[in-house]
C-alpha cells in the first residue's frame, strides 16, 4: 500500500518514452521512500507488455486490456485510474505531460480531490515544516516547475491529500534500465468493476496520427532558431548547417508560435528537453522556458546581435553577429577543416 504509481502510455503499441523516463525517476524516488514502484497501463492487445516495463525496476504492473480502451478516451480511462487509485491508495502518481496525461491528470485529481502539478521539471523527496501548527510533514513529493512565464521556479507540495500527482514532459527525466531481469508481478484489472456505460458516451469518429518523424531528442548536435531568425525562409540556413554537421533543427516557442518551425521541433518547458553534445542557439534570446529545455547541453554556442541576451550567460561561446552572416561562415570553415 501507499506505493508510487506511474501511469504508462502507449506510443505505436510500445510503452511511450516519457513513461519509461518516469519509471526511471519513479524507481529512484521509491528507493528514497522505501516503497514499491507500480505501473499502470491501459489499452487493447497488451499481451506481454509488462515485460517491457519490469526492467525499469517496476514491482507491479497493472494491466487493463480491453477493446474499449484501444484509443485513449477521457471518461473510461479516468474511471479505471480513479477506481484503481481508490483501491490501491498510492502516495504518489506520475504521468507524462502529453496530450493524454494533461487530459487525464486533472480529471483524476478532481475526482480524487488531490493536488496536481503540471509540467514539472524536477521531482524530489523532502520534508515540510508548518510553523503555525508545529507539524512536520515527512517525505513529501517536491514538485518543482517554472511558473509565471518562467520568471520564477516554484516548489509545490500537497501536504494533506493523496496521491500527490505530477505530470512531466518527455525528455526531462533520463531513461535507464535498472536490471534486464528485474522480476515484478503482473496484475490484471477487471475493468467491468470501474467502467460505467455512460463513460463511453464520447465516440472517436476519426483518427490520423503521424508516425514519429522528427526526433530532436536523439540528436547529438542541434541547431536551434528563435524569433530572431526573422522568417521561415531564414530557417533554411539552420537546416543547411544541421545537415552539414549531422544534426537536427530545433526552435524556441516564439519561433514555433510565429510559424517558423513545427511544434515537434520546440525545445523548452512546453516542448522537448534536449541534452545534445552541441547546441547552437541562433537568434534565441534565452527565456527560462527555453533554457530549461537545453541548459544541460554539452556545449552551447549562442549567435545573436544582442550582447545582453540571457542565453549568452549560459553559452560557452557567444558570437556577436548576424546569423545570416555567421552560419554560412560556419558551414564554409567546417567544410574546409573537417577531416
Amino acid at each position, binding site marked *: 500500500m501507499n506505493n508510487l504509481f506511474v501511469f504508462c502510455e502507449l506510443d505505436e503499441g510500445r510503452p511511450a518514452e516519457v513513461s519509461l523516463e518516469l519509471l526511471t525517476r519513479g524507481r529512484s524516488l521509491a528507493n528514497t521512500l522505501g516503497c514499491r514502484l507500480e505501473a499502470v497501463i491501459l489499452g487493447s492487445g497488451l499481451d506481454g507488455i509488462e515485460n517491457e516495463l519490469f526492467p525499469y525496476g517496476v514491482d507491479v504492473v497493472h494491466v487493463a486490456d480491453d477493446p474499449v480502451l484501444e484509443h485513449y478516451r*477521457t*471518461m473510461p480511462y*479516468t474511471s479505471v485510474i480513479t477506481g484503481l487509485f481508490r483501491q490501491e491508495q498510492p502516495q504518489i502518481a506520475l504521468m507524462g505531460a502529453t*496530450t493524454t496525461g*494533461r*487530459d487525464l*491528470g*486533472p*480529471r483524476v*485529481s*478532481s475526482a480524487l*480531490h488531490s493536488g*496536481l502539478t*503540471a509540467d514539472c521539471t524536477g521531482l524530489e523527496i523532502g520534508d*515540510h515544516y508548518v510553523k503555525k501548527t508545529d507539524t512536520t510533514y515527512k517525505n513529501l513529493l517536491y514538485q518543482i516547475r*517554472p*511558473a*509565471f*512565464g*518562467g*520568471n*520564477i521556479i*516554484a*516548489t509545490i*507540495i*500537497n501536504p*494533506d491529500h493523496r496521491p500527490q500527482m505530477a505530470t512531466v514532459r518527455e525528455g526531462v527525466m533520463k531513461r535507464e534500465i535498472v536490471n534486464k531481469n528485474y522480476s515484478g508481478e503482473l496484475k490484471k484489472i477487471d475493468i467491468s468493476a470501474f467502467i460505467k456505460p455512460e463513460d463511453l*458516451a*464520447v465516440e*472517436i*469518429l*476519426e*483518427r490520423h*496520427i*503521424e508516425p*514519429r518523424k522528427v526526433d530532436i531528442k536523439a540528436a547529438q548536435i542541434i541547431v536551434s532558431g528563435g524569433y530572431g531568425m526573422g522568417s521561415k525562409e531564414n530557417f533554411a540556413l539552420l537546416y543547411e548547417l544541421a545537415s552539414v554537421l549531422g544534426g537536427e533543427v530545433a526552435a524556441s516557442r516564439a519561433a514555433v508560435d510565429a510559424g517558423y518551425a513545427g*511544434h515537434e521541433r520546440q525545445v523548452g518547458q512546453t516542448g522537448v528537453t534536449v541534452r545534445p*553534445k*552541441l547546441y547552437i542557439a541562433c537568434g534565441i534570446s*534565452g527565456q*527560462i522556458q527555453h533554457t530549461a529545455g537545453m541548459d544541460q547541453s*554539452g*556545449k552551447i*554556442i549562442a549567435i545573436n546581435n544582442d550582447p545582453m541576451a540571457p542565453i*549568452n*550567460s549560459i*553559452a*560557452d*561561446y*557567444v*558570437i*556577436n553577429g*548576424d546569423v545570416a*552572416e555567421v552560419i554560412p561562415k*560556419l558551414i564554409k*570553415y*567546417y567544410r574546409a*577543416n*573537417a*577531416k
Partner: protein
Amino acid sequence: MNGIKIVVLAKQVPDTRNVGPDAMKADGTVNRSVLPAIFNPEDLNALEQALRIKERYKGVTVTLLTMGPVRAAEIIREGLYRGADDGVLLTDRAFAGSDTLATSYALALAVKRLAPDIVIGGRQAIDGDTAQVGPQVAEKLGWPQVTYAEEMHLEGDRLIIRRRLERGVETVSSPLPLVVTVNGTAPSCRYRHARLLMKYKYARTDTELQAESSDYIAAGRPAIKITEWGVEAIGADPEQLGLSGSPTKVKEIENVILQAKESKRLTASDKDIESLVRELIENHTIG
C-alpha cells in the same frame, strides 16, 4: 438544435509573454502591477468558437464567465465587444489563493447555475500553463470533456469536435452538455465590433458602478449590467475555496537568476569563426 446556451470560460491574466526588466522588483519578485492584464489568448480562441456556433445556428446565446478581481470585468466587456451576449464575474475575497481545483469548484457551481449546453474555455492560461481547470470543471459537473479542440459543429443533438494531438488529429462526437477546451491552433478571435463597442462601453458590474466617479452616471448612459456573483450566489462551501480548499501549496518560490558562466566572446569575423570551428573539431564536439 435551437436555443443552445454556451458559457465561455475566460481568465484575465498578466501578459507574461512580454516580461521586461522593470517587471522584476528590487527584491527579485515579480511586479504584477506593471504587467498589462490581458484576455488569456486561448480563451479568445474559445470565444471565437462560441461565436461561430452562434452565427451558424438559431437562438444560440453566449455568456462569458470569469473569476477574478473586480477589474476582470474588463475582459467581459472585451467579450461583449466581440459578440458575447452577456457576462458573469465571479468575485469574492474567499476565492483568493485558490489553486486549480478550488477554482474549478467555484466555476463548476457557477456553470451549474447558468445551466448551459456547452462550456468552452481555452486550453490553458499563460500565467500558469497548467491546462487543468477545463478538465477539472468537467469532472465536477460529471460531464464529458473534449480538450485541444480546433473546430466544432453540431450534428443533431451531438457536438462534433476536431482535436489537435501531438502528432495528429482526432475527430470525436460527444453528447451535450459537455466541456470543450480550445487549442491556440484554432482560428483567432474576431476583432471588436464598432457597434458593440459603443453599445457595451459602459457596461459595468455593481461594484464598479459604486466605485466609479459620477461622470458615468452623469453621462446618462443606459445601465447595462454585468452580473456579479460571490460565494453565496453560487452556494459555495467556503472550506472548498481559497487556500483551505486547495490541495496544492507553494512551498518555495525561487526567482530565476541565470547562472553566469565563463563564455568566450567572438565576433562574426572569418578569423574568429574559423578558430571556433577548428577548436570544436579538435575537441571532437563536431566532425
